């Protein structure tokens, strides 16, 4: 099987890499780029643990061939923090609201929430619930997660603008 050369931007950096034709984006992120924040739960699109953002949209990296990522802009949980280790506002709010227990679902949930808040100014609770409906959490019961995202949404716009300026 011929390997495929893929050029993509991962967390702001250009990555040029040879991938197996049957490698999933999830495999390439975890095994080749050592970005192990992205998790594999079900592997079939049901749990959202593998959620990353591709060209601004939340997707399941377990269902995407790495070879198809030519020219794509990819964001993973590792790309969220600031240069000096500051947490992203969503990460801060998740901690503040105790929106995680074991934490396995958290990277995927944060990425779904980010993709959503990036384009939604004043979301309702219902809209937040829909935005994270593709992410399963076995521990928390979701209400703290929705609280955290709702709280982050209040300051999100200002936060985002300041961050981009820096």
């Amino acid at each position, binding site marked *: *099987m011929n390997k*495929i050369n893929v050029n993509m931007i991962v967390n702001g950096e250009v990555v040029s890499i040879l991938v197996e034709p*049957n490698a999933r984006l999830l495999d390439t992120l975890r095994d080749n780029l050592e970005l192990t924040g992205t998790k594999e739960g079900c592997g079939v699109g049901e749990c959202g643990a593998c959620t990353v953002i591709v060209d601004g*949209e939340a997707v399941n990296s377990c269902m995407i061939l790495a*070879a198809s990522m030519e020219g794509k802009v990819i964001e993973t949980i590792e790309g969220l923090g600031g240069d000096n280790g500051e947490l992203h506002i969503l990460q801060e709010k998740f901690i503040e609201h105790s929106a995680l227990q074991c934490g396995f679902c958290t990277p995927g949930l944060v990425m779904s929430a980010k993709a959503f808040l990036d384009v939604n100014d004043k979301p309702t609770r219902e809209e937040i619930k829909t935005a994270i409906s593709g992410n399963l959490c076995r521990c928390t019961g979701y209400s703290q997660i929705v609280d955290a995202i709702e709280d982050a949404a209040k300051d999100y716009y200002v936060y985002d603008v300041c961050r981009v300026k820096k």
Partner: protein
Amino acid sequence: MFKYDYLRPASVKEACELLALHGDSAKVIAGGTDLMVQIRDEDKKWANIKYIIDIGHLKEMKYIKEDGDSICIGALSSHTDIVKSKILQKYAPFFCEASSTVGSPQIRNMGTIGGSIGNASPASDPVPPLIALDAEVKVVGTSGERTVLLKSIFANSYKTTLKVDEIITEISFKKMPTEAKSVFLKLGRRKALAISRMNVGVIVVVDSMGFVSDVRIAPGCIFAVPDRVKIAEDVLLGKVPTRELLVEAGKKVSEEMINRTGIRPSTEFKKPAIESLTTRALSQALEVE
């Protein structure tokens, strides 16, 4: 794990040529939400797969536009594109509603309408509204293109009538008249057991005298291939709609299901479910209590 080569054609034409060259050992991938699961499960359908032909980047098939009295949708439009489309919200709102129920946000961002048709699952959500709209599909192969009724693309559950070198490039339908009402309803969720899945898309037009002048009833999940149910539509056509007639139309849908698929273990559950779902959809569309 299945092993295959990855091919990335630069155009629809090149994709068709690759399909013609590799025949049954090749398969196109769009959003991958069906194919990646089937390959992972080593579905025997794909046992001789040697090539995956990626069409997901062919932007020439990603559009939603008006063309006179028709709406044309590129096959690579995602469910999210469809849900957000102002044109579709205006002219086929129940199709947007159906697409908004597919999987999860992530699945809707990846999954395409062409893939929903290509997969030919009897349980598809976006397909019944398209059947109710009498949609057509444009199909391109190495020997040119043809436009056929969407209905004729389905051969059986999970089987299409597409030739080996053919790709669906566009779905189109006539705009509904402004006075038409459409409703899509769905029972159950995918994550719950498959047996609880069922859906229906209906369109009704009532004339100024209060008579039903057009009615389309397209249930999902109950036939091997999707279809309108004429005997149920005939119950209402030309009549002033009443509660009794809507119940009667629902009964005709389950009658047709049994005619086509016979009595099965699931019939006991499916019969009352599809009857009440159909009646409910019609009563919402016709605003009959």
